[in-house]
């Protein structure tokens, strides 16, 4: 079992995300995280799927995804073939704001991006292991809420989408 990123480039067609996710549902495979956004090309969407599975399975999944009519191309990568980030937000009660917390924020190079009457919001970007370790520490500060995005990733291999658009 390995961690993989599947990058799917699609036409902007209603239901495309559903068509992709049912491929996973049918085979009982969990999606660890999923993000969707516009790509470099106008009108083409990029869906990034993170999952833990075998190489054999990820190849099959990529082929099944590519079989969807409105999918232009699906690439799969191991973690060392992509540059990726995840963003995390941490909501901390205002009472917890003390020098100890300030030190943690500095150490992690995190930011306070909002301060309200009752709480502050800390933002931190990194790999899941990094945002997770900050979460563990912030539990001591009575963290109120936590949210982490799916992976956004760009590939290292230079095989570009352009050749599949002809």
């Amino acid at each position, binding site marked *: 079992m390995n961690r993989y990123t599947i990058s799917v480039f699609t036409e902007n067609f209603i239901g495309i995300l559903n068509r992709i996710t049912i491929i996973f549902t049918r085979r009982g495979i969990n999606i660890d995280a999923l993000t969707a956004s516009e790509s470099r090309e106008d009108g083409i969407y990029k869906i990034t799927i993170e999952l833990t599975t075998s190489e054999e399975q990820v190849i099959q999944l990529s082929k099944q995804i590519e079989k969807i*009519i409105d999918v232009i191309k699906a690439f799969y990568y191991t973690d060392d073939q992509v540059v990726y980030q995840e963003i995390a937000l941490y909501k901390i009660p205002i009472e917890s704001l003390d020098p100890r917390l300030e030190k943690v924020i500095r150490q992690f190079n995190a930011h306070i991006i909002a301060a309200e009457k009752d709480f502050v919001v800390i933002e931190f970007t990194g790999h899941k292991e990094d945002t997770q370790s900050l979460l563990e520490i912030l539990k001591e500060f009575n963290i109120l809420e936590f949210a982490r995005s799916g992976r956004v990733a760009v590939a290292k291999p230079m095989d570009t989408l352009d050749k599949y658009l002809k």
Partner: protein
Amino acid sequence: MIRGADIVVRSLIAENAEYIFGYPGGAIMPVYDALYDYSDRIKHVLTRHEQGAIHAAQGYARVSGKVGIALATSGPGATNLITGIADAQIDSTPLVCITGQVAAHLLGTDAFQETDMVGISMPGTKWNIQVRRAEDIAPAIAKAFHIARSGRPGPVLVDITKNAQTEFAEFNYIPCLGIRSYKPYAEVSKEAVQQAAELINAAERPFIVFGQGVLIGKADKELKAFVDKTGIPAASTLLGSGALSEMNTHYVGKLGMHGNYAPNILTNQCDVLIAVGMRFDDRVTGDLKRYAKQAKVIHLELDPAEIDKNVKCTVPILGDCRQSLEMLIEAVHANKHEDWLQRFRELEKEEKKVVCANDLSPTKVGLTMGEVIRFINEYKADDAILVTDVGQHQMIAWRYFDYKQPRTQVTSGGLGTMGFALPAALGAQLHDFNRQVICVCGDGGIQMTIQELGTIMQTKAPVKIVLLNNNYLGMVRQWQQMFFDKRYSFTELENPDFVKIAEAYKIKGSKVTGRAELSEAVADMFIHDGPYFLEVVVEKEDNVFPMIATGCSVEEVRLS
């Protein structure tokens, strides 16, 4: 400007559609209203159930090679298409299904007969779309036809809201020639063909297994040329039957669970396995861990997702098999494999002695399904089409029917849909009234769609229906006998008088219970002008052999 409903019908006419199989209802009524004006240009067949409509469309598509069309209303009308959609998907049958939908402003409100058809049909269709504006209808239908028939064919669904049918738009039909994100035909790699040819030329015991891809790719002549030049024994999957004449000297039988003894056993003794247009279904391979492990595998396949899905191959040849076979024929040496072929013939003798003799010329009192097929072979035309349902009769008919031409078989292979045969036979017959269409059913399956006798009556389609009645759900009973200690749990049927039912539908019928009447009854059926219903009462507890039990390897095929 014309109405959206007229656009639907004129788009179908623009695609040279000959038949629509359908059933009206509220949300599709504008289209039915339009059909009234075009009845001289396109024929609509009113079935008795939407499932009947889609199976008829499948039967039509399978024998004609054209796209079958099913039309239904929203809600229950549309959901009744789902079994046929799933069947067409797994058997790669090109279909365009058009469903009515509630008006756009009612979507998502649980309106009367509203169902999320795009959502429900998504896992089972090759593509689907909801159309909410009249101007989007023609482009959606054009795209639907292109997707349904190109590449590996499949079912598509176009869901059209009622307002789109009643609103007006310009009509200018532009056929869809390509889609940026969809490349249905890969270019055949010369290197792959060369590598495959080298393996084939060096092989001592090569073996060809072919499937429906040969029929879909219209590559039957190329397959024959390839087999004739290389002298390689060739066996068929269920859906591949007919792609190579069974009279060909290199044809060695059928593969899989109830296929023939020799090709199953020798799959595990060949040194090069050449798979043409087949997908290594579990009913063909048995236990994958013990399937052709000794062989180098060459896979000629159109769908990239099939490569290495079940069986890892040494040389994949992606692309249209007609093209890849043509290239292979050039690249391989003419050869003979007489000794190897002889081994198939020896095992075949054993099967004939132990199994076929008892099936075809039994000495016991009760009639066998096999002897009925034997008489069908005797009286049928060479180009007769055999349509079967699902179960024991399907396997027996497949085993013994003489397939001499391509596209002479229609059956539900991948999905195993009971109730498929009767409506599918109707669709096959409507494609050509002058061809013999023989519909072989069991007493279980026929009762799932028996209402389509009404459609046969109304269309006067001269289908020859042969009911092999053992008063059991025979295949399930066989499994109960073999694997569940003969605990015949809910498989025995108390049946109606089938011939009377047929006669109530004004279809001539007769019933045979003894061997003495069988030959003449089958002959009479073929002579009769019009549809005919022949019920043959067969032995209650006969089993289908050979058999590869679930979890067993192909070489563990049993003769009894």
